[in-house]
């Protein structure tokens, strides 16, 4: 009895301790972060904004991949670890299409460039959509009734298989895409330069994101997805074909990953079997940061991580630098999981966001 009472008291004390200290620490960290950003901005405003543009571009790319994690999690409560690798294969498909099918080179005409990009985009979206749905069909659906850890393990297994496929296809080295996008300035004002290749990335991603939001909100198939995500049995009782809806969600997530793959290949110019692992980790963190299962949350999380990464790697005054990016991303992931598991935009509901 005495020990019991003692534990209870110390537990209560610890809770009140943490309820003061943690917000204080968090506030301090955020204040330091803001101070650091402000000092950097003051020291070189034009440079700061230019770095910000890099963050926006990367963030847009991450959003495409993060949405795939969040769509699948929303409907199956499964973290699709193979998603990053579907993205990577989308990059390899795109590189192959651009170079071997459309025979693009650095001095192609604008018309040839646009045609090749649109053509490769459609192929990458279709291929990754079908691949992702096939993965669900063979690796996740048979385990629908099994304990949750089972599909999680097959997801990790699928991730390895896809990386091996990539090595078998392209070898372990980088597949290079020569810089095809124009890199000249769109505008250059007061020392701030915004270049074409960054605008093109946004021109590809923004319509895809808007189309997705419209689709999920307004269409019959989108409503079926939302209903299935909220209560699978009830959705079936409304006459929704639940299996078809889940397949469709994987096609959509795959198509977004394919878009991301193309953008990555064009913008970063090299891609290999483990690219999906790195980008997948960042995108997954973005999805959790925004609130996994929440579509606007995934975009917000992706943009924030894009900015965090670019400021960390690009700013001049006391930036940790690119060696620290992965550690910082991982730390963010841990902090969210511990202190706000529902993410920035997720709801604190009993049945999850």
């Amino acid at each position, binding site marked *: 009895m005495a020990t019991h009472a003692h534990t209870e008291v110390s537990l209560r004390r610890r809770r009140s301790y943490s309820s003061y200290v943690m917000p204080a620490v968090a506030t301090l960290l955020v204040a330091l972060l803001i101070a650091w950003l402000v000092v950097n901005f003051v020291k070189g405003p034009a440079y700061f904004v230019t770095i910000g543009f890099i963050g926006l571009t990367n963030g847009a790319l991450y959003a495409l991949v993060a949405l795939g994690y969040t769509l699948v999690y929303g409907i199956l409560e499964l973290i699709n670890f193979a998603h990053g690798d579907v993205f990577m294969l989308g990059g390899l498909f795109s590189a192959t299409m651009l170079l071997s099918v459309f025979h693009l080179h650095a001095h192609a005409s604008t018309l040839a460039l646009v045609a090749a990009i649109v053509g490769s985009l459609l192929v990458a979206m279709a291929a990754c959509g079908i691949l992702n749905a096939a993965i669900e069909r063979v690796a996740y659906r048979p385990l629908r009734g099994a304990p949750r850890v089972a599909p999680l393990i097959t997801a990790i297994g699928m991730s390895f298989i896809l990386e091996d496929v990539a090595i078998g296809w392209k070898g372990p080295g980088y597949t290079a895409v020569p810089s095809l996008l124009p890199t000249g300035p769109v505008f250059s004002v007061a020392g701030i330069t915004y270049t074409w290749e960054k605008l093109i990335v946004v021109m590809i991603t923004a319509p895809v994101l808007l189309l997705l939001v419209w689709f999920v909100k307004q269409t019959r198939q989108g*409503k079926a997805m939302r209903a299935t995500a909220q209560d699978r049995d009830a959705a*079936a009782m*409304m*006459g*929704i074909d639940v299996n078809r809806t889940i397949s469709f969600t994987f096609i959509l997530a795959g198509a977004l990953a394919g878009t991301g793959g193309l953008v990555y290949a064009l913008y970063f110019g090299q891609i290999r079997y483990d690219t999906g692992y790195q980008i997948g980790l960042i995108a997954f963190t973005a999805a959790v940061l925004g609130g996994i299962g929440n579509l606007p949350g995934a975009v917000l999380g992706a943009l924030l991580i894009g900015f965090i990464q670019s400021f960390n790697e690009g700013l001049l005054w006391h930036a940790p630098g690119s060696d620290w990016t992965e550690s910082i991303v991982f730390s963010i992931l841990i902090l969210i999981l511990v202190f706000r598991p529902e993410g920035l935009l997720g709801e604190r509901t009993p049945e999850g966001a």
Partner: protein
Amino acid sequence: MSAQPAMLLELKGVETYYGSIQALKGISIEVREGEIVTLIGANGAGKSTTLRSINGLNHPRKGTISFQGRDITHDAPHSIVKRGIAQSPEGRKLFPRMSVTENLEMGAFQRSDRGAIREDMERVFTLFPRLAERRTQKAGTMSGGEQQMCAIGRALMARPTLLMLDEPSMGLAPIFVERIFETIVEVNKQGTSILLVEQNALMALHVANRGYVLETGTVALADDAKALAQNPQVRKTYLGEI
């Protein structure tokens, strides 16, 4: 016998399991066109499992289920809805983050006659004025009674031939219970056959044409509702008489 209305739903020797646990041990029931049929019985007797066997969420391992003369024993849930069976399930199962209107729209998911869907929604709002006041409220934030009305309204939006209701009066204040039973009778008068699962055996037998008493996965008694209500064994066990 020619006076009897046509057979709508027929279960023959249905055996349904949860994993290795057998919940139904050979259930045979029928619903004819225009009828209200009630399933009563203690907690765990297998009433909800019977509905889950019919709606395709838990297929029987043995026995057959036919609807309008067609075998639907192993059909997928969504095609069973298309055939004309809708339900308000146990625990209501609304879409918690959708509004009342959106939930009702989901009820009409397999229909495409937009004009008629809008009319039906207005009918539901007339039936349950309380829901009309809460059109835009998220279903998950409503009270139990309001959620129950929304679940019944959602099932009606499918314009079903057969409406299945699993404990529609569960946990409701008496005034709501009355309203729900009135609605059941009204919907039935408009031509919908009803399979009603109830704990409230007295009310259920009062509105039903026929009834089945389930006991541990089998049909213990089957009779006209009036006869069941007079049955001494039923009165003792389910109507709380001594």
